């Protein structure tokens, strides 16, 4: 750490802390997105047993990102992490058409929870690189996102494994927080 950055740390006001919740079905790409945000290596990812958490500084915010495992057995625990959430990020495997219905059901279950009332929603349409993956707009239609009226939402196409599109999504997150 250089002297300059230490000085800057001392003088600047502390960053505002935000709590981001990263949810979605298993194998959607949540941990990959988390690692991309933290600029970590993504070649050795394993299925998440329990959860991972990382703090990232971005745009004057300190983002505490909670990545909760997506397998069916773990989903009942999701609700334990809802409290004080600033942004909900929902990750969808755009090529996993078989489980499109399942992912939709889980999403609306989340949106109907009181603790997540008015919490802005970012949907990552992940794995755009895979053949016959749904585009972001098709996925938005399939998940019936335009029907959501009680909060701001955004859908962002991305290929997390190549680091494409993740940053754009986070820019929206920071913007919508500033508006609040």
């Amino acid at each position, binding site marked *: 750490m250089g002297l300059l950055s230490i000085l800057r740390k001392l003088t600047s006001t502390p960053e505002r802390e935000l709590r981001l919740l990263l949810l979605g079905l*298993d194998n959607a790409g949540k941990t990959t997105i988390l690692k991309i945000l933290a600029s970590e290596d993504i070649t050795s990812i394993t299925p998440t047993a329990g959860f991972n958490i990382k703090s990232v500084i971005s745009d004057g915010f300190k983002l505490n990102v909670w990545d909760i495992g997506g397998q*069916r057995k773990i989903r009942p625990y999701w609700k334990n992490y809802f409290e004080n959430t600033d942004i909900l990020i929902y990750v969808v495997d755009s090529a996993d058409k078989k489980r499109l219905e399942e992912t939709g059901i889980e999403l609306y279950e989340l949106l109907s929870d009181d603790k997540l009332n008015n919490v802005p929603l970012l949907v990552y349409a992940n794995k755009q690189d895979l053949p016959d993956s749904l585009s972001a707009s098709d996925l938005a239609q399939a998940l019936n996102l335009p029907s959501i009226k009680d909060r701001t939402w955004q859908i962002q196409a991305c290929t997390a494994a190549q680091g494409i599109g993740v940053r754009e999504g986070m820019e929206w997150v920071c913007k919508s927080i500033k508006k609040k």
Partner: protein
Amino acid sequence: MQFSSNKTNSSFSSECLNKRLQQYSSKSSTCLVSLAPLSNIFHKISNNMYFSFWWVFTYYLRPIIKWFLRKTTGLCELQRICYGEVSGAPRVKAVEQSLNSSRSKQIRQLIDHLNDIAENRRFTGANEREILKGAVSTVLIVKKINPKIHYQFVIAFGKCVEQIWGYKQLLAEVEQLRQAQFDSDDLNHERKLYELWENLMPNEKLEGRITRQWQDIGFQGEDPKTDFRGMGMLGLENLLFFATEYKAPAQHVLSHSMHPTYGYCFAIVGINLTSMALSLLRDGSAKTYLYNASRSLPTIRLFHYFYSFLFYEFDRFWMECKPKDIMEFSSVRDKFEKNLRNSLLNSRMEFRIALNVENV
């Protein structure tokens, strides 16, 4: 964690040296060998403000001390290590450290040459003896050692070279296996998946390839293929080895994983432990285990044994921690890894699965 430290001080003896020289060399070697880890620390510190002082020490003073000991004992540093350190990890690590800090051009060339062989995994079979012979004779010439008098050094040093570059070769092999993705079209991959089921659940028949039953052994969904992720075939091979070579312990661990409160996902946790074993292998922490467990060229089986040890011990640790639910996995895992790394710091530690009779 169960371990036993039953290494005895191997003799410093070289029968052809007289007793006095023996005592002398053993004394000096202990003091010199302790320089190796010291220089390691100095190297780390050299990144900050003490830079110049330590740099001067390691760069100028160490060779002077080495020269002095060489003149007084008549032995080079490698000899002092091979005669003075107990066999296994303490000796192999010290030799490795000494070779890596060598400034001799021939030794550096030898290291590059051996690294190249290990990375391309050519350190096998008939090649092995040739390569070892070449490495030993290079050192004999550079260090002006008479192999007739120091035949024990020749044997001990050769074994060290075998372990050091066997480890590097193993790392290359393990990485290759990790990069191989599970492929449903590969019959061999599919067969291994079925074998895993049969070994873990011998009394239950699998109803199909895509079935919820996979969740019984801790996969996430109906098809395990997406669960191996970044660990690729290494994850499956690890699980399969544990389930076949340690059949009873593996089933015992599996039964714990089905516990109503302390239960966890056997396969998923297993794949996460593959990742832990790999990171320990990559950063060199696993050297203590491998150098102590291995009597010949380390093979992939040794890595599987290491993994099996990790899995069995993790299960025990998990049950002892009495976690509230699976959401405590990362904190329990981190604690387990910290303890394990602490134990691995002690080069004399030997690790083995402590099987209780009632478990088997």
